[in-house]
C-alpha cells in the first residue's frame, strides 16, 4: 500500500512539473503577443488623431512632431535608419566575410579559439560605451580627414555599428562555414585545389545560407540599435543620404520622446508606438528571413 501511495504522489508531482514547465514555455508566446498588442493598440490611438493620416505617415517626407505645424511622415527617420545600417553593412560584410573565411579555413585551431570569444565580446560591450567612443574619440579623428564632418554624423556611427555587429557577420558566418563537413574539403583538396580555392568555391557556397543569415541578423541588429545612434548621430530628423550630416533614426526618435516629459495620450507620445510598430515589422521581416535561411543550412547537413 505504502509503495503504491508513494507512486501516486510521484506521478502527481511528475504531472505538476510537466504542466509548470509547459506553462513557462507558453509564457514566452505572451511576450510576442504583448509586444504586438501594445504596439497596435497604442499605435491606433496615434492614427486616431485628426492631425495624422496613415498615408502621410507612410509617404510623408517631413517629420516635425515638435513644431507648431506638426508633420508625421516617417521617411526622414527611415532614411536615417537605413543610411546608418547601410554604412554599418558596408563595413561589416567585407570585414566579417574575410574574418570568417580566415578563421574557419586558414587559422590554426588555437588562434580561432582565442579570437572567437573576443569577437563575440564585441556584442557585450555596453552600447553607451560605443556611443561615447564614436562621439568623443573617433569623430574628432575623422574630422581631420573628412571635410565638413559634423560632430554628430551618420558616418562614424555607422562604422562603429559595423564593428559592433561583427559577432553576427563574422562569428555567425564562421559557425556556418565551420559546420561544413571536412570530407567536402578533402574532396576538393584531392582534386588539387588550394585552400583559397576550396574556401571560396567549395566551403563558402556550401554554407552560403548560414553566412547570409548572419549578415541579415547583423543588419537587423544595426537597424534596431538605439544608444550608439542616440549619442553619436545627433537627433535631427534629416532626409539626406550625406553621411557627414546628423540624422535621426526610428530608435533615437523613441529615445528623444521618452527623455522628454510628455504626458501619456498626447500626440507625440503616441507617435512613439507607431514608429515602434514600423521598426518591429521591419526587423521581424529581416529576422524571419534569417531564421528560414538558417534552418535551410541545418537541413543540408
Amino acid at each position, binding site marked *: 500500500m505504502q509503495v503504491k501511495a508513494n507512486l501516486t504522489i510521484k506521478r502527481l508531482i511528475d504531472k505538476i512539473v510537466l504542466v509548470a*514547465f509547459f506553462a513557462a514555455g507558453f509564457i514566452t508566446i505572451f511576450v510576442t503577443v504583448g509586444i504586438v498588442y501594445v504596439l497596435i493598440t497604442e499605435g491606433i490611438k496615434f492614427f486616431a488623431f485628426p492631425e495624422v493620416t496613415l498615408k502621410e505617415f507612410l509617404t510623408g517626407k517631413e517629420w516635425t512632431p515638435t513644431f507648431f505645424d506638426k508633420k508625421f511622415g516617417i521617411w526622414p527617420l527611415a532614411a536615417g535608419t537605413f543610411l546608418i545600417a547601410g554604412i554599418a553593412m558596408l563595413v561589416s560584410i567585407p570585414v566579417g566575410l574575410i574574418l570568417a573565411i580566415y578563421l574557419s579555413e586558414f587559422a590554426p585551431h588555437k588562434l580561432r579559439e582565442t579570437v572567437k570569444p573576443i569577437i563575440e565580446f564585441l556584442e557585450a560591450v555596453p552600447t553607451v560605451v560605443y556611443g561615447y567612443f564614436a562621439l568623443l574619440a573617433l569623430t574628432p579623428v575623422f574630422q581631420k580627414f573628412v571635410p565638413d564632418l559634423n560632430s554628430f554624423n551618420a558616418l562614424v556611427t555607422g562604422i562603429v555599428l559595423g564593428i559592433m555587429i561583427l559577432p553576427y557577420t563574422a562569428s555567425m558566418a564562421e559557425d556556418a562555414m565551420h559546420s561544413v563537413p571536412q570530407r567536402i574539403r578533402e574532396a576538393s583538396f584531392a582534386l588539387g585545389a588550394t585552400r583559397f580555392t576550396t574556401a571560396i568555391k567549395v566551403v563558402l557556397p556550401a554554407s552560403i545560407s548560414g553566412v547570409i543569415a548572419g549578415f541579415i541578423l547583423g543588419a537587423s541588429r544595426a537597424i534596431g540599435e538605439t*544608444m550608439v545612434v542616440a549619442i553619436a548621430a545627433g537627433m535631427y530628423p534629416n532626409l539626406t543620404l550625406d553621411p557627414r550630416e546628423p540624422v535621426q533614426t526610428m530608435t533615437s526618435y*523613441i529615445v528623444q520622446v521618452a527623455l522628454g516629459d510628455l504626458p501619456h495620450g498626447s500626440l507625440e507620445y503616441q507617435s512613439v508606438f507607431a514608429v515602434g510598430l514600423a521598426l518591429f515589422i521591419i526587423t521581424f521581416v529581416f529576422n524571419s528571413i534569417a531564421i528560414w535561411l538558417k534552418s535551410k543550412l541545418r537541413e543540408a547537413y
Partner: protein
Amino acid sequence: MRESLPLDTYKEGRYVIGKDLIFIIAGLILVFLVMSLLLSVIIVLVLDGWTRLVDPSFYTSFPSRFPERAGILSAWVGTVYVMGGAIFWSIIIGVPAGIYLEEYARKKGVIGYIERLIEINIANLAAVPSIIYGLLALGVFVYIFNFGESILTAGLTLGIMMLPVIVTSTREAIRAIPKDIREAAYAVGATKWETVRDHIIPYSLGGILTGFIVSASRAIGETAPLITIGALTFIAFLPPSPITSDFPFISLKNFKEVLLSPFTVLPIQIFNWVSRPQEAFHINAAAAGFVLLVLTLLMNALAYIIRYKVRRKYKW
C-alpha cells in the same frame, strides 16, 4: 591533415600559394585591427576618466550638477537591484522553458504545434530590438499593471529580454547529455521529474550558467528599454535596504518599497553625462563607462572559464 599537404601538390605553383598567403595576411591584419580597436576603447575610457576613476568619492557620491562632485552611488546600487530582478525572472521562466522544449516536448498533435510555435517565437524574440521591449514594458507593466517607473518594472523588462539566450543555452546544454543517462535512470524506476532533477539539471548546470552569465552581461549594459519606461537620471537617494539588523533580517515592507522605488542604472547615468555639453561631465561618463565595461568583461571571462571547466569535467 590540411596543414601537412606538401607544397608540390599545388598544381599551379607559387601564384596560387601567393593567393593563400595574401588571404592569411589579410585575415591576420583584420584580427589584429579588431583586437586593437577593442583595446583602444578600453584605453580611451581609462585615459579620459582617470581623474575620477582614482577618486574614491566617485563611487560613494550621488549624481550632482557639479561634475567634480558627481558620483555613481545610486547608479551602481540601482544596477544591482535591477539585475537581481532580471536574474530572478529570467531563471524561473527561462530554465523550465528550455528543459521543457528539450526533455518533455512531444512534437506531435496540437501540443506539438504549440511547441513549434514556442521555438520559432523564441528565435524571433532573440532578435527583437531592445527598445521594443521598452515599449512593451511601458504599455504593459507601467500602464496596465501600474507598476510605475520602478525597479520591479525594470527587472521584469530586462528579465524578459534575457529569456531567449537562457532558453537556447539551456537547450544546448541539455542536448549534449547522451540518451543513455536518461534510460539508465528510467531503468531503475525514476520518474521523468526525478531524472531531470537528479541528472539532467546537474549535468547541464555548467552550460546553463554560462548562457546565463553571458545574457546578464548583455542586460547590465542595456540602456534603451529602461529609458522608455522612464528611468530617471537624477536620483539622489537609495531605496530602503531590505536587509535589517534585527530578526528575521529581511523586511518585507522595505522589500516592497525597493521594488516600487524609482531608480537609475549605470548605463543611463553614462548616457546622461555623455549627452551634456560640458566636458567635465564627459570625464565622469568615461569613468563610469570603464566601470561598466570591466563588469561585463569579468562576467564574460567567468562564463568562458566555466564553459572550459565543464567541457573538461564531462566527457560523454
